[in-house]
């Protein structure tokens, strides 16, 4: 009896620690992403910016500048793969304005809206619990290879996102904090890290796409799942191994991930005769696709951790609780039951295999 009470108290402590850890992760994530945006917002709304904007409207040198940007060719003794006889490369100016204008502004807006939506949803719905409670019976969901690929992609993605967003928003956010020299140092270091981790991400992403492709093709029932909101707002909706939401996220990863990868490689290895125009377009596409990717990742990370009880362990342990499977992927659960694989797992939710004292991961 005393042992049972002790175990319950230990389980409660563990659950509290887990909740505290999840909250900490969320707060850190939100802080990383919101703080830079708040700085941008501050810079955008500051009186100096407004003054600068007003000044720009009445710039007496506008005609001169327009003429400079006209692209008239002069004479130069220089030769090479790039245009050298034009004073200002007009495409570069356009690229800079697109990058520092709509891409930065709408990007911050999109990510901010997503974060606000997640917070609002959490406040409204709370954590999606396993309604029937934990059964203690485990169902294998992801193989070691699946999980390995997922975490290599996820880990490198987070590094790339932090370094990439710092480069994109650093001018507005980090310079006021670090100063020009400090930001120059951080930007240069982050650029190298970004360039080094990029190719690793690309290889892992392609392998993950190939590995996960077959299960993510559209099926009958996906539309119904979507029309009923995936059960997030009400009762659960029938689903196979992957629900329509997961499939949509997979195809976002495929399209945005591959677009970001291809453009990233073009930027990372500028030794194949890429023209300035190609580099400028690549950078713009790279920024836009990665912002969409990051925005989607917020939702994915939320629902995989804080938003839904029992889903993270699918990717950390490789298995899920049978009641979780019944509630969220009932058709898949029935398939697993028919093939006798329910309970065929040794790794337990505590992550410690069959170590004594760990929550039961027993066979059915």
């Amino acid at each position, binding site marked *: 009896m005393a042992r049972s009470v002790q175990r319950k108290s230990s389980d409660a402590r563990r659950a509290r620690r887990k909740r505290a850890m999840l909250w900490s992760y969320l707060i850190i994530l939100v802080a990383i992403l919101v703080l830079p945006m708040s700085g941008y917002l501050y810079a955008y709304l500051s009186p100096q910016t407004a003054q600068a904007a007003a000044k720009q409207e009445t710039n007496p040198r506008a005609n001169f500048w327009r003429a400079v940007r006209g692209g008239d060719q002069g004479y130069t003794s220089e030769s090479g793969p790039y245009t050298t006889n034009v004073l200002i490369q007009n495409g570069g100016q356009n690229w800079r304005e697109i990058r520092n204008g709509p891409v930065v502004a709408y990007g911050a807006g999109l990510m901010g809206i997503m974060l606000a939506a997640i917070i609002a949803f959490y406040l409204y719905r709370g954590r999606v619990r396993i309604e029937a409670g934990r059964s203690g019976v485990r169902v294998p969901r992801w193989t*070691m*290879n699946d*999980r*390995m690929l997922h*975490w*290599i992609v996820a*880990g*490198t993605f987070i590094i790339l996102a932090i370094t990439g967003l710092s480069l994109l928003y650093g001018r507005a956010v980090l310079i006021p904090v670090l100063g020009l020299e400090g930001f120059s*140092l951080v930007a*240069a*270091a982050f650029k*190298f*890290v970004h360039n*080094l*981790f990029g*190719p*690793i991400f690309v*290889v892992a992403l392609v392998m993950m796409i190939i590995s996960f492709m077959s299960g993510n093709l559209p099926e009958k029932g996906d539309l119904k799942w979507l029309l009923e909101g995936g059960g997030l707002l009400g009762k659960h909706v029938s689903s196979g191994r992957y629900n329509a939401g997961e499939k949509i996220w997979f195809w976002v990863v495929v399209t945005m991930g591959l677009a970001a990868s291809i453009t990233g490689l073009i930027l990372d290895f500028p030794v194949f005769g890429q023209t300035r125009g190609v580099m400028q377009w690549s950078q713009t596409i790279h920024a836009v696709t990665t912002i969409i990717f990051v925005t989607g990742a917020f939702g994915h990370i939320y629902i995989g951790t804080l938003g839904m009880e029992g889903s993270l362990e699918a990717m*950390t342990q*490789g298995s899920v609780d049978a009641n979780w499977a019944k509630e969220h992927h009932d058709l898949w659960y029935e398939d697993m039951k028919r093939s006798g694989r329910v309970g065929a797992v*040794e*790794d337990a939710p505590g*992550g*410690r*295999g069959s*170590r004594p004292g760990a929550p039961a991961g027993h066979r059915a």
Partner: protein
Amino acid sequence: MSFAQFVEGPLWYASAAIFVVGVVWHIVSVLRLGGRRELSTPRTGAAGGVISANLRHFFPSGTFLKRTTFHVVAGYLFHLALFALLLFGAPHVEFIKQHVLGFGWTAFPHGVFVLSAELAIAGWIMLYLRRLMDPVLRLISDADDHISSLLVFVVMLTGCMALIQGVTALRLIHMLTFEALLVYFPFSRLMHTFMFVFSRSYTGAAYGRRGETL
């Protein structure tokens, strides 16, 4: 004395000394433990067993080929790439020339150096994820395993950042983390860099005397 001079001068020499003395002390301590006295008559000499154990362990055993493929590939990827960039990266060759041996050798071109760094990082990620996700490996991993792994990663990461030529602060950060690694090295499982030969030899010799091969 500036901070840079301190990091690349006294601190470097101190950490290098701790590393050398610590490694020697560790190896001598293990050797002084000796082995269990063999009571049976040796069937064959120990030398064959030592050579066999050392060489054959470089290849995965056929019986466990499928189960070990992942960590064998990741292990080779990480270690070979790490030592390649450690020994043939141009900044490292230059450092060895200036601060260690007084002479250098031909270094990798920049592209190959970067490729080695990519492979080493990819190998590290694969190995560390395996440590976190394999239930048995997770269970037997202790603080030292995690500290060692993360310290190596931090050194690699700061090394990536230090690739920017001429930025003293980034070079110093890399140097500082490397010095921390040198100090930690002899007291950690990173000693497997040297000890794997001794442990393979010990086991190989024991089996060799009994007429078995590993």
